[in-house]
């Protein structure tokens, strides 16, 4: 935007270390961590390990993209993991027990997750219930529904071999664990979802209304934005993303179970926050979330390679969130 040139008063030609740290944010964290891990173990800085990291964070990427939109709109969705399980389980049941094709089964799974997401939105908008409470309720309820659908067993399961119509379709497995040339398919899907989300957020009127609703509800209303409608749609869209994420995860595990991706909601929120999105709404970007997800992936991958005890990994992961947000606060204060 050339028009801005005259008013932005940056005179330095070479960016200082400080400005790199200030502007780069979590990306600097990824680079620093990578350098550290690479210097400790030769296995870290390899193509196959990086592809592995991307594969591992792909589902978080998809769900965290949905979470980014919801949080920008001033909400929070604690039910993303349960939505994923619901969609994934129902799709898997349809494909392996009811003999549905990949396409029909996938559509069913995505549709049911979308409907449940819309349900979140309606409860929040029409019932005037805080987002946190409504989705906390759905977090529990939808897990229960998934357990009911699967009878608490993995899908497909050999305990029910007589009722089995077939194994999960190869296309589904390809979605979760296949490779395109060297690129893992789930990682490509995850990055694709991030790009679509970026497009929605920055280039559509709906995306702009998300920022408006999250930034100042009353002002959005006064400007003619239908706040309730925006909320219902964004939660429905989150449901759709979770349904898609469910398919990827089921494909990756070649199996569905009702308790899969438990606790992933906290990982998605962590990725969003690490990515610099404002938890109170109105501000943020999905590329930040992508970096946040990768940062968490790099950290756990590196710690694994260094043979750090999983117990310690939990401690480190928790502290990471706090450190990043502290850093972000400091960065913003300097920025102002």
């Amino acid at each position: 935007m050339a028009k801005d040139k005259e008013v932005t008063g940056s005179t330095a030609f070479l960016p200082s270390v400080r400005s790199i740290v200030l502007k780069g944010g979590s990306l600097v964290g990824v680079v620093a961590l990578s350098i550290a891990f690479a210097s400790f173990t030769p296995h870290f800085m390899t193509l196959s390990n990086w592809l592995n990291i991307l594969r591992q964070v792909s589902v978080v990427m998809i769900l965290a993209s949905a979470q980014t939109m919801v949080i920008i709109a001033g909400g929070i969705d604690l039910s993303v993991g349960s939505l994923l399980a619901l969609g994934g389980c129902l799709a898997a049941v349809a494909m392996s027990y009811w003999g549905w094709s990949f396409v029909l089964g996938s559509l069913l799974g995505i549709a049911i997750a979308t409907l449940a997401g819309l349900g979140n939105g309606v409860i929040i908008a029409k019932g005037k219930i805080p987002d946190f409470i409504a989705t906390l309720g759905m977090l529990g309820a939808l897990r229960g529904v998934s357990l009911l659908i699967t009878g608490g067993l993995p899908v497909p399961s050999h305990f029910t071999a007589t009722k089995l119509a077939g194994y999960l379709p190869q296309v589904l497995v390809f979605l979760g664990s296949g490779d395109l040339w060297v690129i893992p398919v789930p990682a490509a899907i995850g990055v694709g979802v991030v790009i679509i989300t970026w497009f929605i957020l920055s280039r559509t009127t709906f995306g702009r209304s998300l920022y408006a609703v999250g930034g100042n509800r009353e002002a959005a209303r006064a400007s003619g934005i239908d706040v309730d409608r925006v909320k219902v749609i964004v939660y429905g869209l989150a449901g759709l993303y979770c349904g898609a994420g469910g398919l990827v995860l089921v494909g990756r595990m070649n199996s569905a179970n009702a308790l899969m991706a438990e606790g992933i909601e906290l990982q998605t929120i962590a990725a969003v926050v690490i990515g610099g999105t404002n938890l109170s709404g109105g501000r943020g970007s999905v590329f930040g979330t992508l970096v946040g997800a990768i940062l968490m992936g790099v950290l756990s991958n590196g710690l694994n390679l260094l043979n750090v005890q999983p117990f310690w990994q939990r401690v480190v992961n928790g502290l990471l969130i706090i450190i990043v947000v502290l850093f972000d606060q400091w960065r913003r204060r300097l920025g102002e």
Partner: protein
Amino acid sequence: METVLLTDEEVPQPILVLKGISKYFGGVHALEDVDFEVYPQEIVALVGDNGAGKSTLVKIIAGVHQPTKGQIFFLNQPVEIRNPHDAQALGIEIVYQELALIETRDVPANFFLGREPVKGRWGIFVDRKKMIEDTVRTLKELGIVLPSLRTLVRYLSGGQRQALAIGRVMPWGGRIIIMDEPTAALGVKESRRVLDLILRLKEKGCSVIVISHNMRHIFNVADRIVVLRGGRKVGDKKKSETTPDEIVKLIVGAEML
């Protein structure tokens, strides 16, 4: 005498006429039989004590309230303004006192809040180039100076925010712009800028209805001053034919002294 000198075309016709407007909220008579006109390129100051009915009157014009009795004419046609959308369709825009801006968004985003220009077949894709160009053009036309278009509204001063809130009603072909206490929260210098902005809107062909308590500001910009007291119109004076003293007396109801 005027009718002799001027032909029909030269007699300025009011754009907006309110006739015999009453508004009752239950037993409360907020407005009682009020006549009110706005002429083209006119700045009307609406004054009165708290509870005199100023806000109720502008809310009726903006479609927020419906009158209990009375009629509204727009360009000589009887109209009903049932909601803010009807008002906007007539070119009536209101600048809210509490400044309906999004602090976490930049200038063009706020300028086009809720009515972003779209491109393409589906009508959902934002035309960002047009947003930026229109914002730059309107700000320039109105002489509004902001640090940078990318600045978040959070970092703008009170006066800059007020200017932005006023400026953004311009591109919508606003013929009548209503402002509720536009200088209430501003310092001397910033108030001056906002008053200049009101005058520039008039030059651009807009009419402005401004609610204010500040006599100096009113006498600076207004062409006509309408005084409400207890829901009734008690004064309707051209600025040239009145004084701040007289207006204050009308407001407090002590004109007999």
